[in-house]
């Protein structure tokens, strides 16, 4: 029995999950004390189209790799998940590294090494798909390194800067 805390759009749920390998494919999950039977497609694949049947209610969902959000056919929800026994949580605490979220060309640097920045401050501008995209700091701190020059092409997930 695992006990997971799931916060969806600010609403908190405690989910107790029983045996994962049942004969009929349905897992028992008790949500805030109410038991439900849940059948799901393979949920391990991040951001594939997933289906689930909860009791008699069918769903299709996209679930973010880092469990930051889930998208149902009706809309989108923000998530926060914590294993109440093991202490593991998703999304993980904010990373100090700023990586290229898409491949592109660095247009402008907006900070210098050593400069103090606050969370949400623009750090550089990346051009991709006919758009100029401002890349911002996810947390406050000091710019420890800047690994990109204007005009430089960067690959997906390439390290652009570090904030310490």
């Amino acid at each position: 029995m695992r006990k997971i805390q799931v916060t969806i759009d600010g609403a908190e749920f405690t989910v107790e999950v029983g045996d994962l390998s049942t004969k009929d494919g349905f897992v028992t999950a008790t949500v805030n004390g109410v038991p439900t039977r849940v059948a799901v497609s393979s949920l391990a694949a991040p951001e594939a189209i997933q289906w689930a049947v909860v009791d008699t209610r069918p769903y299709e969902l996209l679930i973010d790799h880092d469990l930051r959000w889930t998208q149902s056919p009706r809309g989108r929800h923000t998530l926060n998940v914590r294993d109440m026994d093991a202490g593991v949580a998703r999304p993980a605490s904010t990373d100090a590294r700023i990586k290229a979220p898409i491949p592109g060309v660095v247009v402008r640097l907006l900070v210098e090494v050593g400069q103090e920045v606050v969370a949400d401050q623009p750090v550089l501008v990346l051009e991709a798909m006919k758009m100029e995209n401002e890349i911002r700091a996810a947390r406050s701190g000091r710019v420890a390194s800047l690994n990109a020059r204007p005009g430089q092409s960067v690959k997906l997930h390439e390290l652009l800067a570090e904030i310490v």
Partner: protein
Amino acid sequence: MFKKVLVANRGEIAVRIVRACRDLGIAAVAVYEPDDIGALHVRLANEAHALSGPGSYRNPDEMLAVARRVGVDAVHPGYGLISEHPGFVRACEDVGVVVIGPGSAVLEQVRNKIGAVAQTRAVGIATTYPSSRAFAPDEGAAMLVEAEAIGFPLVVKAHAGGHGRGTHIVRDRESLMPVVIRSSGAAQAFYGDAHIYLEAAMTASRYIEVPVLGDNYGTIIHLGERDGSIQRNTRKVIGESPAPGISQTQREQIWQTALQIARLFGIRGAATIEFVVDDTGQHYFTEIKPRIQVEHLATEMITRIDLVREQLRIAAGEPLGYAQEQVRLSGVAMFCRINAEDPWHGYLPSPGHITSFRIPGGPNVRVDTYAYSGANVPVHYDSLLAKLGVWGATREECLNRVHRALQEFQISGVRTNLGLLRLIVNDPEFVAGTYTTESSQRPLMDGPPPDDNLGDLAAVVALAFLSRIQSANPSTPPAFTSGWYRDSRKLPS
């Protein structure tokens, strides 16, 4: 009719044109930049020619060279890219290659928005009221003189683009120059042209546009009107035909004005005459879009006329073959743009590999796309993935169906704006058809969707959490694990 047509574009519109050619028995010739060789428009064409490298789709000289070498009768440039490049059109005309579009003379007239408005006003048609000319950002003194003549409030607009981008209101003399600098910078970034112009402010209530078709023999018809008032991130992502918020009398008046303007400019082929309607119901001409548009999907569904086919037929010199009375405007159609972008992260574009792509089906649902499961969304091009069109005999039927179709549409591997579109079609103002241009300013993305059972989702998410911890794989790319992305801006096309 043409034997062979060069499709001088890529993505969904290239696929759309290839289809129209094949449906007419015309050989479609595709071109591709090296990265795009496996793209759908290449696979479906009868013939395919490599371009020299990245950026070639925008190179009119290279495109003309291919057209001449291959020996096509005509070129269809689609929209964007070189579709409104006057030099390209003129060069093709000089060597006897037909460009499927308005012809260079008309093109130059309608691209000059201030001139087109003046010409229209000269025959007594109500128009928006722009400054007498466009200004470079450093012409502050001349701008002030015109601004005083127009009066405040007024609007600063980019001269090169459509409405939306670079448009800002100015309430007094003192704010003029700061706003001009901002607008001009945006115009430079979006359209590659820093010129702006001024226009009298009006309480625009709706953007109404009238698609028209004209042949070489004097027949000009309209195809009803569309509402294009709903924009997000300064782009029209959804629209419908007919427009829900105007009376039948207004509708017919707008059609008549549109036909009058189309005749004035001698429109050939497909074009759209655009208007703003103010809160008293008066309509004012703004500009002409002389090309095929994504929005035409809705028009095709209410008329059952294939507009790319009509473009090809008209350009080949065929008469339209039907009159206004024979065009049946039937039912209600809505269109949606499905973009590879993340509305929850500042509309950051999302290139990548599409891992699954399931499009909606059933009666009266249509999807035009270059994408499929396994396709790549390249990083170099526009984020438009697919156009969705839905038709219903009544607006209620159409609304139910567009809901259903957006729920069925599932894409994974790249981020899309499907979630945003689902919120828009759930919005009470959209459902009621009472939306105006103001509606787009309201945020939609704050609350949770109303009809999801959050407890059920919690159970599913808990299971996802457990299975991902168990199958944790360090080689999985940590996409989006850090950094925030805001204020994406469109670059000149």
